[in-house]
């Protein structure tokens, strides 16, 4: 299948970067912007690219000085405390070594950073004598931040150090033109530090980078493209792991405050729509895109749903906050935190589940015990570490647990109810005050006595506290050999492909079992392993394998479109709420799965071609002949209205740039493909859309631009090129 690639789009991306960078640079320094950007040109050979790392510059408006760092984590952290990121300035060697070029072999020199705590200033130099001199004046030598070359080798640029007496700050520039421009503005040229590599002029906004962002976010947009250009994929993930979510409860509290302010009697409450909107706030505009995707993925594994029974809005959003907080941390912590949310407690009846009473024929509720095993952790059948099912001597699958184990877990989980109540008072168990925003607590008096049967023959001893039993039971689940492959396979399905190879599952499972530092359950390491795996990254793997890919989930398709066209609303909010209708929506809506079994099963296959190919395709469980009509109409109307919702929360797409290309159908289609299918379309799809767009008469009227754009975009978002992520 021949892929087309749009150059125009990437030119456009660079343009956006220019603008964005200009905004970030402080006013006195603004004259530098043009010079700095003109300095970035040329590609580094693939041979050395791995050995290089960008050196990023930050500016502190408070301190008035600059700092350079190769550390993406530090770069990100500084931005959280007020530093302005100014992007990579040039690239340096990660380690000392020898570089061979046409000019001969050159040994690297250390590029050392010093810090003056008194004045809050940094300087870097390759000159050991100068470093000593700075140190003698009270500067702290922080050691090398990387290595550059003392003499020029092909592809390198000079590193000039400049000093501003006005700002008392040091910067490093990579061309004589830049240097001279800055000197003319009052800076002093101090020293040629050496030679290093420029930042690529065409940054990482290649199809692969966009494809990566399509897998890892709710859709590439200008901001994330800029970030990945800065940090690369690894660095982007590292940075995302540190980004936190804005609490959804903030959105609910603000909504409630607005209602109170608007009411005549000073009353107002949460409404469930707040909880859905809070999710879309994070998806559309959150800077924590990877966290948001992981949260959505886990909300489809450890499911709560407001379809029935009703779950209070603060319970749902507290659950989302708990998932967000833990979802890039450790799976064990996530499991416990979710277990103790009142939302989950209520949804699967652990809340208020009390010990058995033989005389009264009572027993602890088994709902949560059953689902935590079947769906959240180990699954029904014993697995190999590559996710395939183990079989016994007779070739039959082996159940992971029996009914007595479910009973054992239900006993281990008994005695919990709303937090914030007196759990020393047994009667209070039956008349709790409902606190939906804090974890459940245990009543020892309502906890099952006796031993409890867990997985793998483990028996919990009699007489433990409910808290200890719960921790032990969750440890038992966490340490079961099924958990790494069971969870890893599902996460791969949510991000990359419905049918990962067994070795792919095994590689990710191995990271789940041990992140390389002896830690089991490190979800940050797991998602990195998933996204950086060759099966995810090698695009030819997908194009050469007819079973590759996954359907983009309908709600993710919606988010992809909104983000691609930089959708915004007047008041910064949204009113995206119920998308679960089959008739005119998506058949899928966060927090509204039909049951704890989610919108679809990770094992779903559709009779016909999929089943015959031995493939599963979870998302196809909600893709049928009426849903497809509803979804298609939904997207057509989104494109037609150029917005979703109403009032000041109406989320509007920016189709202006697209419409500007309407006179040239091929350009229009390539532009849209750049936004939605990482610049790639099958020849058939591309030709077809161009032909269709050309068929819309065009005499350069504005409404014709609209019709052509609508035609192209509608066909594109219904094309398999967009729907199936490969």
């Amino acid at each position, binding site marked *: 299948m021949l892929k087309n690639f749009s150059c125009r789009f990437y030119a456009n991306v660079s343009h956006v970067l220019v603008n964005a960078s200009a905004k970030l640079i402080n006013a006195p320094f603004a004259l530098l912007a043009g010079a700095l950007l003109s300095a970035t040109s040329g590609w580094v050979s693939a041979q050395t690219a791995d050995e290089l790392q960008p050196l990023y510059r930050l500016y502190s408006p408070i301190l008035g000085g600059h700092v350079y760092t190769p550390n993406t984590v530090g770069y990100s952290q500084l931005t959280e405390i007020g530093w302005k990121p100014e992007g990579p300035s040039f690239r340096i060697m990660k380690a000392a070594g020898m570089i061979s070029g046409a000019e001969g072999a050159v040994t690297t020199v250390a590029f050392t950073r010093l810090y003056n705590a008194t004045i809050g200033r940094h300087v870097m130099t390759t000159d050991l004598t100068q470093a000593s001199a700075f140190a003698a004046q009270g500067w702290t030598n922080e050691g090398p931040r990387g290595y550059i070359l003392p003499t020029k080798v092909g592809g390198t640029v000079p590193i000039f150090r400049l000093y501003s007496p006005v700002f008392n700050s040091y910067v490093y520039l990579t061309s004589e033109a830049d240097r001279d421009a800055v000197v003319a503005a009052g800076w002093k040229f101090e020293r040629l530090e050496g030679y290093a590599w420029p930042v690529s002029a065409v940054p990482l906004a290649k199809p692969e980078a966009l494809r990566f962002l399509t897998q890892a976010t709710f859709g590439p947009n200008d901001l994330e493209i800029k970030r990945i250009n800065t940090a690369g994929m690894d660095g982007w993930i590292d940075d995302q792991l540190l980004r936190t979510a804005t609490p959804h409860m903030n959105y609910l509290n603000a909504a409630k405050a607005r209602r109170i302010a608007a009411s005549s009697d000073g009353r107002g409450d949460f409404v469930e729509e707040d909880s859905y909107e809070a999710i879309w706030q994070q998806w559309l505009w959150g800077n924590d895109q990877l966290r948001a995707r992981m949260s959505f993925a886990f909300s489809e594994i450890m499911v709560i749903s407001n379809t029935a029974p009703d779950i209070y809005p603060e319970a749902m959003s507290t659950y989302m906050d708990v998932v967000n907080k833990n979802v890039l941390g450790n799976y064990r912590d996530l499991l416990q935190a979710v277990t103790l949310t009142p939302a989950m407690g209520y949804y699967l009846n652990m809340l208020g589940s009390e010990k058995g009473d033989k005389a009264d024929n009572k027993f602890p509720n088994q709902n949560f015990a059953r689902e935590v095993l079947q769906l959240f952790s180990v699954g029904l059948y014993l697995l190999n570490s590559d996710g395939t099912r183990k079989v016994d001597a007779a070739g039959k699958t082996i159940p992971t647990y029996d009914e007595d184990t479910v009973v054992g877990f239900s006993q281990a989980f008994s005695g919990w109810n709303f937090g914030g109540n007196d759990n020393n008072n047994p009667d209070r168990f039956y008349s709790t005050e409902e606190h939906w925003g804090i974890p459940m607590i245990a009543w020892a008096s309502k906890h099952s006595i006796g031993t409890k049967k867990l997985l793998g023959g483990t028996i919990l001893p009699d007489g433990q506290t409910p808290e200890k039993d719960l921790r032990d039971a969750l440890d038992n689940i966490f340490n079961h050999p099924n958990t790494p492959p069971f969870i890893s396979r599902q996460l791969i399905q949510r991000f990359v492909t419905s049918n990962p190879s067994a070795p792919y599952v095994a590689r990710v499972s191995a990271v789940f079992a041990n992140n390389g530092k002896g830690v089991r359950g490190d979800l940050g390491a797991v998602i990195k392993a998933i996204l950086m795996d060759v099966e995810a990254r090698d695009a030819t793997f997908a194009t050469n394998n007819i079973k590759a890919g996954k359907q983009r989930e309908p709600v993710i398709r919606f988010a992809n479109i909104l983000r691609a066209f930089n959708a915004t609303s007047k008041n910064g909010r949204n009113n995206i709420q119920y998308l679960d209708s*089959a008739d005119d929506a998506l058949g899928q809506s966060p927090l509204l799965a039909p049951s704890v079994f989610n919108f679809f099963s990770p094992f779903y296959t559709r009779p016909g071609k999929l089943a015959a190919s031995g493939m599963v395709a979870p998302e196809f469980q909600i893709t049928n002949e009426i849903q497809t*009509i509803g979804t298609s109409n939904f997207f057509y109307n989104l494109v037609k209205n150029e917005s979703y919702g109403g009032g000041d929360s109406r989320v509007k797409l920016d189709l202006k740039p697209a419409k500007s290309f309407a006179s040239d159908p091929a350009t229009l289609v390539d532009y849209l493909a750049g936004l939605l299918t990482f610049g790639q379309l099958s020849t058939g799809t591309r030709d077809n859309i161009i032909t269709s767009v050309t068929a819309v008469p065009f005499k350069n009227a504005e409404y014709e631009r609209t019709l052509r754009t609508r035609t192209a975009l509608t066909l594109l978002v219904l094309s398999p090129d967009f729907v199936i992520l490969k």
Partner: protein
Amino acid sequence: MCTDQMSTRTSTSRRIFIEQASALAAAPMLASLGMTETLAQSAQDYKALVCIFMFGGNDGNNLLIPRDPSDWNQYAGPRGRLAIPRDQTLSIKPSNVQGREFGLHPAMTGIQTLFTSGKAALVANLGTLAAPLTKAQYQNNQAQKPSNLFSHSDQQFLWNTGIADNSLRSGWGGRLGDRVAAMNQSGSLATCLSVGGNSTFLNGDTIRPFPVSPSGQFGLDFLDSSTSGNGETAALSQGMTQMLAQPQANVMDGVWLEILGGSIVNQRQFSSALNGAPLFQTAFPDTGLASALKMVARLISVRSTFGAKRQVFFAGIGGFDTHGEDQPQRQQELLGEVSNAMTAFYNATVELGVGSNVTAFTASDFGRNFPTNGRGSDHGWGSHHLVVGGGVKGNALYGTFPTLVVDGPDDAGEGRWIPTTSVDQYAATMASWFGVNSGDVNLVFPNLKRFASANLGFMF
């Protein structure tokens, strides 16, 4: 495959059949299956089953309430705040229970009328069973139990599959469809229709259900429309046609287009058929279930377009998982919706002249436990269900009403009734009426032989 019931029920003009058959490419296939004779005799032969699934587990203890004063007292005590005052229940006197009086939930006035007029029946303490099960057997694990009792998803699944000890993926509605699809001119297209989304119930071993939107929202807004004179619709229609014709190497690419294309073609067929649907005199309430059943009635009204002689429908209504304090209010709304929708639906079938040819029945995950949990009620097991239609021997209560005593003879624990009638028996009774012969009934319901009766006798 064709049964006595089918071939004896109808007499019709051969001329009508010949007219229809002339448009029928399927005739040779039917001949090879020995079906033509039946078809010829049954040009007006029509039967439909309509499953109404109450998702979440309806509390049957408040759908059917004993109304004799001492019985009511026995009922009211453990029910606590859930107990419905005796005089608020809607009196029914089933003809077959020796003068015992029962009351329906107060919201079910429509059902009361249908019941009294003989068009509705009740089946008591019905549920999933792998085999007959006594309390002693249950307690001592001496007999096989349905897998994953009290679990929503599993019990829904078992209700839909009709096989309580097997993980067979097909539903009994679909397996009935497998056996009758050949009777329908359009084959499988209009045999199993869901107005309640994807459900196991209609998945056959070979047949795939076709979902139909209850709203009648058909087709793509941007195709086949003559309203747009600006060239956009033409361009989009052309583009869609081209796109659907593109061969795809990637399997999922192909399946996506297959569904997209199939939906357009099929929806055009339904849309065009429904354009000819008559308007009903019968008023349907403006509720989700009523809208769904109205669509079923409309589809039945145009059955001849599809040459459909046997159809199985699926509709659903959610919200029955009433653990909490809102159970009384919630059930009032939900059972009212069920009653009003089923009543309107029955009236519409009468209006269409197929009142005796269409049977609607309820299903649900499970019943709920008898004593209140202090707020609502928790997951139970056996429950009471409704069968409505002119083919029903109504005004009667089938099965055995449980002894409403916690720890009593029917209690599996905490007032969860061990069913005394199985889903298999309930379903097989309707399957026999539907025209599936006794041999096939045992294939559709492989556990049926374990139960004393294969036919509960509530259908004519």
